[in-house]
């Protein structure tokens, strides 16, 4: 799971390439022995995910930031980024924050404490709403806005500020027409994250091409988001596509209580 011990200069020949990484808990041990209180700094680890390495920084109480290694950001770059974003020092450590490894493996990071205090109330509400999207499902911007109680225009901006990549699943947010809204990362990364969660990208694209935003079942007369667990169980002969909530309502369908699509 861990991929520590990278020597940044290893590829360079000559004496300058002899730079070495100290043991993972070197800095933390120094501070512990010097008596610097643990609450004053964060520690981070580098964990492997389906889309590359993820740096996860945490205070003793909560995860304070995470960033993917995909765009060539090194450990030093992450440390600088974390310092700029939160004003706290992040030191390399050998142990991940409890629950992070499990959250990454299962994709269920809902219960993981994540510190959103540097953000404003609107951003916090939006990011909390994004955190409530279940694994393997997608939710449109309108839904996030409804859950967060904010205007839909504020969603993309708040999602772009996602302080904890992957752990706050901003890759599960789409625009209202069903196309992915990759505001916080590159579209390729978003696709890889979605595919790793078992989201059928081809099916999503196909539904988008047909203009399908909601799927209803003619046996239950309930409509869902197409990636909702209940919608995925509707057999093809019983699937009824809708492009708006209004259309579904007029046809006499009610909204699913599990994925709570918009109602009119």
């Amino acid at each position, binding site marked *: 799971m861990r991929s520590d*011990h990278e020597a940044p200069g290893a590829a360079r020949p000559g004496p300058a390439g002899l730079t070495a990484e100290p043991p993972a808990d070197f800095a933390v041990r120094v501070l512990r022995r010097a008596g610097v209180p643990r609450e004053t700094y964060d520690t981070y680890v580098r964990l492997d995910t389906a889309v590359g390495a993820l740096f996860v920084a945490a205070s003793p109480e909560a995860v304070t930031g995470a960033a993917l290694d995909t765009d060539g950001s090194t450990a030093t770059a992450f440390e600088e980024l974390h310092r700029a974003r939160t004003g706290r020092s992040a030191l390399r450590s050998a142990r991940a924050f409890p629950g992070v490894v499990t959250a990454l493996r299962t994709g269920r990071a809902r219960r993981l404490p994540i510190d959103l205090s540097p953000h404003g109330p609107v951003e916090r509400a939006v990011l909390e709403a994004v955190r409530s999207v279940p694994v393997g499902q997608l939710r449109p911007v309108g839904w996030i806005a409804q859950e967060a109680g904010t205007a839909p225009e504020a969603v993309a901006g708040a999602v772009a500020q996602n302080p904890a990549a992957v752990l706050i699943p901003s890759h599960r947010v789409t625009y209202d027409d069903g196309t992915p809204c990759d505001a916080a990362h590159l579209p390729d990364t978003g696709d890889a994250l979605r595919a790793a969660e078992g989201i059928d990208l081809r099916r999503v694209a196909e539904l988008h091409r047909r203009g399908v935003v909601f799927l209803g079942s003619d046996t239950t007369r309930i409509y869902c988001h197409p990636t909702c667990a209940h919608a995925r169980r509707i057999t093809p002969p019983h699937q009824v596509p809708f492009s708006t909530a209004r259309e579904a309502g007029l046809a006499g369908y009610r909204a699913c209580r599990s994925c709570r699509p918009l109602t009119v």
Partner: protein
Amino acid sequence: MDEKAERQLTELLATNLDGGFTELVRVHGRAVYTFLLRVCGSATEADDLGQDTFLRAYTALQVYGPERRRALRPRAWLLAIAANVWRNHLRTCSRRPALAGVPVEDTAEARSDHRPGPAELAALADDRRRLVTALLKLPEHHRTPVVLRHVVGLSYREVAEVQQCAVGTAKAQVSRGLRALRRLLEPETALLEGVTP
């Protein structure tokens, strides 16, 4: 490390000792560890001496007033402490010869799984190993300046500060050290090509 970042660091040290020290460990931990590893050759020893270096630094910072902390040049200062710790360690070892362990280069480090394929990797690891063993064969008074200048990447001014000598003396030491290193690596001088004193 650029001037601006150094100034930010000393400013933080002057106003908030614990926060500044945390940043000091974060930013300069690697340089201190690399220096100690390359002069003493053993990973565990470098770890111990590195801990010792930072502990001494913290104790000293507690005594310094804010003005003195602001005037500090952190990297050179830390490496000067590291060099002293290393010198003291050598002296202790020479007095208790039974404790002087045989330096063991950490082969696991040298074989880190990085981008180049197996062939380049083998060559690289081999080059690194040869360079590291040659460095360890240098006499101590040549090894420290060469490591400071060419492995850690200090400027001559900083090397002089660490070694407490004039800049010209530092240059001479590094140049003599490099010449000695070249002699040790005689058949493989290509390794040091492009490294001019």
